[in-house]
């Protein structure tokens, strides 16, 4: 054969290549490619997980946003309610205070009337007492015998008048 081409040697080279291909595939190529796929899958899973988490977070954010908007409405209503309640309570308290004030005034009037009546009664009683004391003083003078005085008074009071 030209150039010393030898089919037997070519076949031996093929066999050599077949051995090399099989050996390299099982010893190096497959394990390394498997590892690279595994790592790729690992990062893909991580990315998917991150995407899912992100989606969840977005949903939660939307929900909270919705809730927040609802809460603002609720706050406004609650504020209105509380303002109304406060106003109502204030009005009630004012009415109560006015009622109490009226009662106090009425009571004060009553007490004043009672005090006046009492004062009148007391003054009348005092007047009576003073009158009776004066009468006694007049009637039971120390130098006179009470019985004589009485008799004098009964007889016409001339002695008394003369004095």
């Amino acid at each position, binding site marked *: 054969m030209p150039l*010393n*081409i*030898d089919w037997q040697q070519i*076949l031996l*080279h093929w066999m050599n290549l077949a051995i090399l291909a099989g*050996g390299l595939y099982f*010893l190096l*190529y497959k394990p390394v490619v498997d590892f690279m796929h595994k790592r790729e899958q690992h990062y893909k899973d991580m990315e998917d997980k991150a995407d899912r988490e992100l989606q969840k977070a977005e949903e939660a954010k939307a929900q909270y946003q919705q809730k927040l908007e609802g809460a603002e409405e609720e706050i406004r209503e609650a504020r209105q309610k509380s303002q109304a309640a406060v106003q109502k309570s204030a009005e009630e308290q004012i009415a109560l205070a006015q009622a109490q004030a009226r009662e106090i005034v009425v009571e004060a009037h009553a007490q004043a009337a009672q005090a006046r009546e009492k004062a009148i009664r007391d003054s009348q009683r005092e007047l009576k007492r003073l009158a009776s004391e004066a009468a006694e003083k007049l009637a039971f003078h120390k130098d006179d015998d009470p019985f004589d005085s009485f008799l004098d008074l009964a007889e016409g009071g001339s002695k008394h008048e003369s004095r």
Partner: protein
Amino acid sequence: MKQHKKGLAVWVLVIVALLIASILAGTNGRAESVQEAMRDAVLHGENRIAFLGGKTVSPALISAFTVTGLLLLAALLLRVFAVPRFKLRPGKLQLVLEEAVGLFHNMAKSNSPHLNKFLGVYLFTAGAYVSIGTLFELLGLQALTTKGHPITLPAPLSDVNAAIGLGTMSYLVILSGGIAKNGLKGVGKTLKEFSLPISMSFRLFGALLSGLLVTELVYYYVSLSFVLPVVVGVLFTLLHAVIQTYVLTMLTALYYGEVSEQLHKE
């Protein structure tokens, strides 16, 4: 500082002395002329090695088996000691391995998106074989010829049989892709590129052989054996390794992708 200068002077003196001694010593006469050496580098007719004690074969076949043995041993060591320690955040060795495997894996995927599992394995094998096989000649491993002369084992692909072996194997792989995807039409599509195995084989052979011949020539003459081998022996070999690996794997991937493309029915 003085010590450095002294050391430098001694180093230069030793080199000059060795140069003069080598020139004065001369050679014991050539066993073969430069023509015979070049012819043998191409044909491997004279310096042959007994294969398994029987048939004599080209030294390149021994190189091929040695390269395969070295590659498989390295792969085994890596499989046992490195691969189980792979981490999600790769270290230097892991990065190199992943880059080497990923290069051919991605080349197969990008050129043949429909069918690429076997192609990836083949490209990785061919790439490792061509690149390491080319660099193998730098080791300068010695073997004994049937005539008892010592010989430096050449790059496997500097032998025409190895180049034909790899070229035709690549063609058969391309053919298998065509059959797997398109059946008989795939065979027809592949056979249209009938010149492919020849061009692939002889491109490899020519590229590797030219490097070998230049190296043979340079080493044949003592006067050319200084400094020059660093360029022609090492740099050319490195370039050959990279270029031939890229060319062969890229061509195989391209044609494989072409013939394994799904044919659309009109």
